[in-house]
């Protein structure tokens, strides 16, 4: 291989909520195996970019390619991409009527990937991986916020996605529960999984993500290797943003 494989390519992404522009031409690419952090002020459009990539939001114009396949703005996605993009929500969105294990095994079984017994084995090993091996039979209501988010990560991993998108995964957690979730995400990065992480945890972005992207006003304002970007911001807007949050 002469060039690293591109997992996600976004070009000129534009989206409006009614008359208000949210994305004004976002370009980004994610290389297979890298962890990319996305930072920026509230309302900058960073979550919307993620939702467009995952197919949760439609977009007005631009181009999104996942694993070399172009996805349309509104139409349902090619079958080959089923489960290809994992998504971890700020609010977990576990299924409250299912146990932790059933949350994890539902999609692999129902999409015809795995038979029930194989899904169960996979589910138990994934729950183990995120430190929930002993809570397989608990319902979400019986789990703490940190446990719920770790369970949601296990649920995402069960579909063996090529890319995992994290939409502010620790923003609705009590402060003392943040680190256990970040630890799991850091482990995934270390395994060489492809991750895009929208986060307000600047220290985490700096440490875990090889590259960081700063979005403001619906545009990518600055991007680069995390260490350099945080140590020596080139744009005034990033400098001001970092001054405010650090």
């Amino acid at each position: 291989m002469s060039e690293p494989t591109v997992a996600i390519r976004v070009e000129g992404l534009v989206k409006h909520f009614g008359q208000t522009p949210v994305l004004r031409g976002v370009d980004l690419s994610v290389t297979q195996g890298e962890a990319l952090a996305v930072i920026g002020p509230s309302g900058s459009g960073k979550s919307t970019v993620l939702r467009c990539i995952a197919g949760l939001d439609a977009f007005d114009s631009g181009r999104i390619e996942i694993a070399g396949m172009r996805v349309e703005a509104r139409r349902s996605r090619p079958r080959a991409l089923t489960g290809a993009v994992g998504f971890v929500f700020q609010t977990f969105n576990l299924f409250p009527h299912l146990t932790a294990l059933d949350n994890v095994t539902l999609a692999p079984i129902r999409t015809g990937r795995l038979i029930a017994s194989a899904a169960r084995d996979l589910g138990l090993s994934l729950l183990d991986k995120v430190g929930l091996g002993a809570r397989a039979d608990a319902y979400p209501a019986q789990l703490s916020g940190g446990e719920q988010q770790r369970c949601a990560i296990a649920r995402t991993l069960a579909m063996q996605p090529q890319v995992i998108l994290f939409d502010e995964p620790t923003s609705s957690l009590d402060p003392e529960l943040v680190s256990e979730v970040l630890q799991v995400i850091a482990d995934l990065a270390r395994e060489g999984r492809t991750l895009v992480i929208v986060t307000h945890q600047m220290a985490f972005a700096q440490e875990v993500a090889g590259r960081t992207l700063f979005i403001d006003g619906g545009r990518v304002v600055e991007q680069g290797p995390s260490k350099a970007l945080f140590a020596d911001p080139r744009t005034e807007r990033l400098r001001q943003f970092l001054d405010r949050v650090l």
Partner: protein
Amino acid sequence: MDGASSLLAQSAPFLAKGLAYTVALSLFGMGMGLLLGFGLALMRLSPRLVLRAPAAAYVSAVRGTPLLVQLFLIYYGLPQFGLELSPLVAAGIGFALNMAAYACEILRSSIAAVDRGQWEAATVLGLNRGQSLRLIVLPQAARTAVAPLSNSFMSMIKDTSLAATIQVPELFRQAQLITARTFQIFTMYLAVAAIYWLACALLAMGQARLERAAAWGRR
């Protein structure tokens, strides 16, 4: 109270027969009403106006007119167009059509009340819309719907007494026939009231069981 107890003993077979009609009408009305109501709810939730509008009009008309008038339209009115129905069939249709409108609104609102994030989580995991609805959204909507559906079910059990007016020999009608013979009016209607109460109390116990079953780890 000797007279009262012998009256009740003599009436018991008639009341039992009436109760059988009441139970049959209630179960049929609720079962069919739920089925039709679910279809109507899906129509009302559709993005397409051609599905949404007729369902909304139906619900408005049924909820906006008295059940008694609906029963009369079906039993006494339809023969004018050559459609003569037996009392039981007419009542069954009437209760099912009436319940459908109420069930529609309960199910529609319960489905709409499920957090959008649940649909989104199901979608990104690769489930299609039908699977998302069936496996994720409906179980949660059903939980929300149990209490209001039980309310409607109870109302309908009691409303089946209206079928007496179109000659269905249900519980209340039996009581009317017995009082016409015996003039033990208060005792008879009190007995009938107690039977309705008992039926509704049983239903309430069923409701409590369902609610416990759908607690999902909550207390």
